[in-house]
């Protein structure tokens, strides 16, 4: 089954385009702020930068309804299990964005209590560097994620559930 799908028949390709169009234009972020970066994340949603333009202003408070996990801030060892659990509570398809140096690799805190990079507990799609990244930086990261989604093939994952894990 997988081989026959490699070539992506015409109809499936159209379906992919349609589904990814919806997915990339309706990325509802999970309203999870951890530290400093959360303030810049809110600033990105506020009037000056307004990610609502991309249809992303519906910050969902419940992980069940979110598509995008913006890990905004320092992840400590105490918080890491919670992050993993929230990630598991999010329904597929889902994406993660590591915002800021702390989430990417511990940032300026090489200490006993800080997790050195959130990619140790959840898979990250896009990394946005900065301490904290500016709102422009975050928007660039979000647009990069949109491009990544546009290149994905959701129909394959629907027809072959194992493909999701090989993504």
């Amino acid at each position: 089954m997988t081989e026959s799908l490699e070539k992506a028949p015409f109809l499936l390709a159209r379906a992919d385009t349609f589904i990814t169009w919806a997915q990339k234009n309706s990325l509802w972020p999970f309203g999870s702020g951890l530290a400093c970066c959360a303030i810049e994340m809110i600033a990105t949603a506020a009037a000056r930068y307004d990610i609502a333009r991309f249809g992303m202003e519906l910050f969902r408070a419940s992980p069940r309804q979110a598509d995008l996990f913006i890990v905004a801030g320092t992840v400590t060892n105490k918080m890491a299990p919670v992050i993993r659990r929230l990630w598991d509570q999010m329904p597929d398809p889902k994406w993660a964005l590591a915002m800021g140096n702390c989430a990417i690799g511990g940032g300026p805190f090489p200490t006993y209590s800080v997790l050195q990079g959130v990619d140790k507990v959840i898979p990250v799609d896009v990394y946005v560097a900065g301490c904290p990244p500016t709102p422009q930086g975050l928007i660039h990261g979000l647009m990069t994620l949109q491009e990544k989604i546009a290149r994905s093939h959701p129909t394959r994952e629907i027809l072959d559930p194992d493909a999701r894990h090989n993504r």
Partner: protein
Amino acid sequence: MTPFVADFLIPVGKIAAVILYPMLMVVVMIWLERRVVALMQGRLGPNRVGFQGILQPVADAVKLFFKENIMQRQADKFLFNISPVLVMFSSLLAFCFVPLGEPIRIGSYTLTLWIAESPVGLLIILGLSSISMFGVIFGGWASNSKYPLMGALRSVIQVLSYEIPVGLTVLTVAFIARSMDLVEIVRRQESSGVWYGFLMPVSFVVFWISSVAETNRAPFDLPEAESELVAGYHTEYSGMKFAYFYMAEYAHMVLVSSLVVILFFGGWLPPFPGVKALSFLHVVPGFVWYLVKIMFFLYLYVWIRATFPRYRFDSLIRLVWKWLIPLSLVNLLAVALVRYLL
């Protein structure tokens, strides 16, 4: 007109319309809300997908359709699955009884702009909107989680309390119109020459406030108060089931706005139906007047949401039991007295 068209195509078309029309209104409403709230807050709002972002709700719906449906292990599976359907179904069903205008004559055939006409249409709609409350309760309870449970509890108390003033004010309209048929109510407003909203402002105000509360909208959005209860009764819902709750909420708002327009603002009648000098307003089709009025009340919803903080639970209940219910009782007596004397 062949019997095939009259007996089969038109009913099917109407059934399709009764699903499509609310859905279309929901799409417009979601877009309107996000744009208008954004503009009120000095933002732009969705403007990337389609013309001015009008396709944004479509993208959201398609995306939600392809999301995973999470079912927790401890949830009551039957109730958990049935409640979004119940909510959506009752909202859509209510639209069967909402007339969109006077019957249209096409040759010998009369096309009615409603699916079902009932002498007690008003009661049925009120009953159906109460059924949607069960969806909320079941959903909150079946999730087997604390925030949804608290949201459901709040919803029960809130909706039960606010049903009373709604019922009492609807009675005043029925008294004056001597009918519970929605088409008849509009016709009476035409013949009496004055919209009931101006005749009975107290009824209108009480009905409008209570209806906003019944739809769980700001400032009465306690059952899904985000800063307190995360997402309220639908916290555990994902994917399409969540979309049902989400769309049903907007469908309910459209329904309530339609009711307000029909009961108090003359439905599809142009302004001042009795004034001869303004008869040129009849040039505009009734349906347009109807939509414009509904849009105005939907806009009010959005305006209120962008302006007011949220009520606290005790003051919410105090408002209804100490103010709205006594007020609507007095109002009912006054209307009955006037009706009796005239």
